[in-house]
């Protein structure tokens, strides 16, 4: 059986992926601290600002998160064949059949797999949902960061109702990202074991191995 190497992911997409990983880790860790500070300074005049520092890191990571989400949105429209959005949403008959086949394959019901060079439809749709969640997370985040700015106040009040509700949604969505990360890493490892296409390394070198069509 011979394989050939295919270029799948552009440099920009790989950069997006790893900066998203970095920003999510920073945001979750500092976000937990901001919500439930696990340290307590009992000395006064120590000159340390743990909460201010954590908040600062959180906001910088938030801007990074915003930038990389914007990059992904750009790639959904202007990226390569694998990166564009219409190939991965289950709204065409072919993609819908692909989604069903993916679900059957993932739950060991069938060995037939809807092979795609890029994302399969199930994974790709989940990523689109995640990007939508990321946008909601960004809106709630900026609403909390700039509560006096008319634009964010209007948008945030319309969507969440109040600062406290915005914070609640922000916190719930953080759990979505933790949950997503866990499932994502598990499914990537699972796919990497099942199919010898080099899925895990494709996000590093951008290349996948495919059966050579004789």
């Amino acid at each position, binding site marked *: 059986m011979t394989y050939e190497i295919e270029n799948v992911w552009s440099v920009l997409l790989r950069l997006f992926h790893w900066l998203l990983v970095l920003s999510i880790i920073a945001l979750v860790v500092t976000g937990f601290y901001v919500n439930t500070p696990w340290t307590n300074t009992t000395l006064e005049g120590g000159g340390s600002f*743990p909460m201010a520092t954590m908040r600062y890191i959180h906001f910088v990571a938030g801007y990074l998160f915003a930038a990389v989400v914007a990059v992904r949105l750009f790639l959904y429209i202007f990226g390569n064949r694998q990166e564009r959005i219409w190939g991965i949403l289950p709204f065409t008959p072919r993609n819908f059949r692909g989604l069903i086949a993916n679900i059957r394959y993932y739950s060991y019901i069938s060995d037939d797999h809807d092979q795609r060079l890029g994302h399969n439809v199930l994974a790709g749709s989940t990523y689109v949902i995640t990007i939508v969640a990321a946008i909601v997370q960004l809106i709630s985040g900026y609403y909390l960061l700039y509560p006096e700015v008319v634009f964010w106040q209007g948008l945030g009040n319309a969507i969440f109702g109040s600062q*406290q509700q915005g914070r609640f949604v922000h916190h719930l969505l953080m759990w979505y990202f933790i949950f997503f990360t866990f499932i994502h890493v598990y499914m990537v490892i699972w796919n990497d074991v099942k199919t010898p296409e080099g899925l895990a390394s494709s996000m590093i070198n951008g290349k996948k191995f495919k059966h050579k069509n004789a």
Partner: protein
Amino acid sequence: MEEQAGIVKLSSRVSRRNFLKGCSLAAAALGLSEAMIPKLLEAVESAQRPTVIWLHFQECTGCTESLLRGSHPDIGRLILDIISLDYHETIMVPSGHQAEKSLHDSVKKNDGKFVLVVEGAIPTAENGIFCKIAGRTAIDILAEIGPKAAAVIALGTCASFGGIQAAAPNPTGAKGVQDLLSGVPIVNLPGCPPNPVTFLGTVLHYLTFKRLPNCDKMGRPLFAYGRRIHDHCERRAHFDEGRFAEEFGDHGHKNGYCLYKVGCKGPGTFSNCPVARFNDVDVWPVSVGHGCVGCTEPDFWDTMTPFYERLPEVAIPGTGVIADVDSVGRKILGVAAAGAAIHAAAGIAKSKLIKKDKA
């Protein structure tokens, strides 16, 4: 009467000096420049005192109680010299038919010119039978008098957003004034109670500039609700430096540290409490060691509870489970991990079975 410690006499006689002090304080609360104070005084002292009609609906009279304890100016000065309070059920002399008469006379005489103050929510369920005055529902009274006002001041969280009555499941269908009245400028002064300085500031702004003050997206004047409590809090330094009261009465609490970890809602609440403070003795909840409960925000009874926790709890529909977000999150993640383990085990078992079949 001999003045006892801590008890301030109510008096309508205010010296010129105290009157100027009161107006200056209100100007400061409004964020007006010193140069505006003479204009403000002129407006206050002019013969045309605005007629104010004060309607009580579904409420506890706490907003009025708070105003009675205001002293810049005190209630006597406010009623006798600054405004013409034609109808206010708590402090008016007439009762019964006489009270109704003074209400209708005043509305007729000042049609389109009076300021309407509403205190309390308006119940709308079952045609509003939960609140009736003189045999008429609150909805009817507001629908009749509201459109004739020049401006409406919704005083307190109930009149602004429905307040405690509107807490889920809101059996009486309580609503704020802005949900029921349109076509008239409405300003919301939420709070449980709102600071009398905020009320006075709004009235003086209206007197001086003939319009209501600039408001945020929820119709709350920016001079009083432009900043979150957290941003002007005297304990903010403790927050930034990571010094917290872990529980009431502990080392941190006794030393005046930040109340964030005992559920203070200051970071999500817009109000001037840390600046204006209450009752002439310069106190407000956080200064006496209790976190903010977020009473100026819509649906505060639903969204700010539990008062001593950071975030609302999650109710998972159909299960009766009510728990805090993080414990629910950890449990869901645990279920996901178990699911992944079962999934992986099933995969291994399947491949073993296939190998056995082939063998």
